[in-house]
């Protein structure tokens, strides 16, 4: 131990910071991946209960009866990793194998600018919000490439649908974010959270409620989740863009990024509209209580709540028809955001609500 300590002190400060940052990156990535694993379990359990089923209840940890089904994600991952990765003979092999990585990398890289607590953020950059927006817009490449490289009609149709949908909803999402940065006066996610100090009614969801709703709907559409999952519409195009994938390629292309993106959208919504790590009891209970203080747990709770809504939506809504999705994106959500940005501009100008001097 002493040897290690002296070795550590012997390193240059630059090298030390490189090592610390690397460990932090690995820690955040591991946390995200583990959350993804248990989110898949939570999804199956929640939807199961909503449909009066049990959900996974066989694979237990150490055979403990009250933990039945808890180890299901690990069983799924091991199964997927051990399966053979098939490459269609007419596929563009390099792109076919590259596509899952192109989906995966932005889904994980976007977590770099997320502030998890008042103290901890990997990269506290000024244009954090833009960075997230830029990276999430990259995921569509993986989907398009997966569909094209497989050289299959169904996959290609799925890719086309997915691309059109993502481009459409990205605009609504971007406009919703414009409203947030107008309210917060900053593109830095930490500053956006700090601008919402002062109890639940000071959070942005209250004054920007239409934008919150639009952001959340666009988030569901961006992640290709039900009821917007036409890109993989089983009944029409088999499974869409990932129909030709199997094994580990399928796990990294489809399962991991989808859930990581879901968590990202939920985290961003919590940070931008629900006050992030701020406590909802701020001002209602004594300040020295743990419940009134900002902490990671509040963020975790809010993200969990939003993720539950994601699962709830999936369990209760039927899939949209493709033209209805396009109509909703272009003709409903975008005008709503435009109107509300104008309203917000008037509010800022007249100094009403949170903009009061």
């Amino acid at each position: 131990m002493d040897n290690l300590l002296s070795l550590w002190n012997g390193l240059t400060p630059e090298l030390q910071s490189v090592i610390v940052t690397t460990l932090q990156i690995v820690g955040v990535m591991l946390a995200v991946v583990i959350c993804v694993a248990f989110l898949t379990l939570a999804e199956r359990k929640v939807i199961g209960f909503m449909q009066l089923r049990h959900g996974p209840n066989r694979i237990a940890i150490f055979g403990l009866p009250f933990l039945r089904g808890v180890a299901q994600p690990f069983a799924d991952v091991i199964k997927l990793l051990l399966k053979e990765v098939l490459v269609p003979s007419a596929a563009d092999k390099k792109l076919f194998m590259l596509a899952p990585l192109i989906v995966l990398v932005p889904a994980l890289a976007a977590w770099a600018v997320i502030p998890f607590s008042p103290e901890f953020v990997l990269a506290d950059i000024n244009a954090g919000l833009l960075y997230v927006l830029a990276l999430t817009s990259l995921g569509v490449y993986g989907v398009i490439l997966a569909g094209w490289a497989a050289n299959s009609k169904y996959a290609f149709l799925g890719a086309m649908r997915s691309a059109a949908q993502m481009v459409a909803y990205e605009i609504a999402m971007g406009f919703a974010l414009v409203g947030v940065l107008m309210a917060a006066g900053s593109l830095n996610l930490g500053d956006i959270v700090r601008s919402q100090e002062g109890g639940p009614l000071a959070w942005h969801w209250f004054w920007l409620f239409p934008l919150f709703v639009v952001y959340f709907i666009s988030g569901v559409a961006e992640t290709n989740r039900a009821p917007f999952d036409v890109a993989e519409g089983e009944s029409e195009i088999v499974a869409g863009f990932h129909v030709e994938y199997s094994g580990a390629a399928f796990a990294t292309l489809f399962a991991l990024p989808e859930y990581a993106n879901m968590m990202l959208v939920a985290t961003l919504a919590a940070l931008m509209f629900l006050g992030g790590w701020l406590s909802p009891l701020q001002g209602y209970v004594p300040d020295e209580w743990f419940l009134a203080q900002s902490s990671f747990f509040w963020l975790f709770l809010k993200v969990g709540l939003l993720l539950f809504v994601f699962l709830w939506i999936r369990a209760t809504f039927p899939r949209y028809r493709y033209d209805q999705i396009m109509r909703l994106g272009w003709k409903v959500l975008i005008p709503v955001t435009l109107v509300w940005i104008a309203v917000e501009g008037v509010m800022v100008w007249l100094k009403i609500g949170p903009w009061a001097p």
Partner: protein
Amino acid sequence: MLTEILFYAFAAVLIGAAIGVITSRNPVHSVLFLVLCFFNSAVLWLLIEAEFLAIVLVLVYVGAVMVLFLFVVMMLDINIEKLREGFVRNAPLGVLIALIVVIELYYVLWVKRLGVDVTGGVAPLPEGYSNTQAVGAVLYTEYVYPFQLAAVVLLIAIVAAISLTMRKRPGLKTQDVAAQVAVRREDRVRLVKVAPEEEK
């Protein structure tokens, strides 16, 4: 030191990708190499602390423009051999343009900044300096009219593109969403009283 290594690494990838754009046989691969080019130039911008420009480059060009490009290229059935026929004929023009660009670069790097070390990077920006804020501060004050003008030009382009596709054609089957929503039970459901079939 680290910055220089990163610069040369990303610059090398950028040049490699640029060569890939013009040499690959498959147009889809060309588009993807172009995406890689944009990405690497964004990283080079990051290295000189122009993070706003870098992110906007990724957001606009990689995230939106190139997606549509890819979309179109994938849908078209492009015959490469036919495209290559004109290569020898057009080569002198290409060489001429390349020469002009090289001379311009030479002018910028050498003549204009004579005596200044341009490879040593720029001076680090002060703490708390926000690139985004700096761009916004001049864009919305000093250059507000050109900015608005650019926005109007883009809007006109959007309206024009939509009006080109939205023309009324004979035989076009569209859905009237308002009519679909306004439909009532009485319009669709007809209850018919059927006399029970009696056994004889």
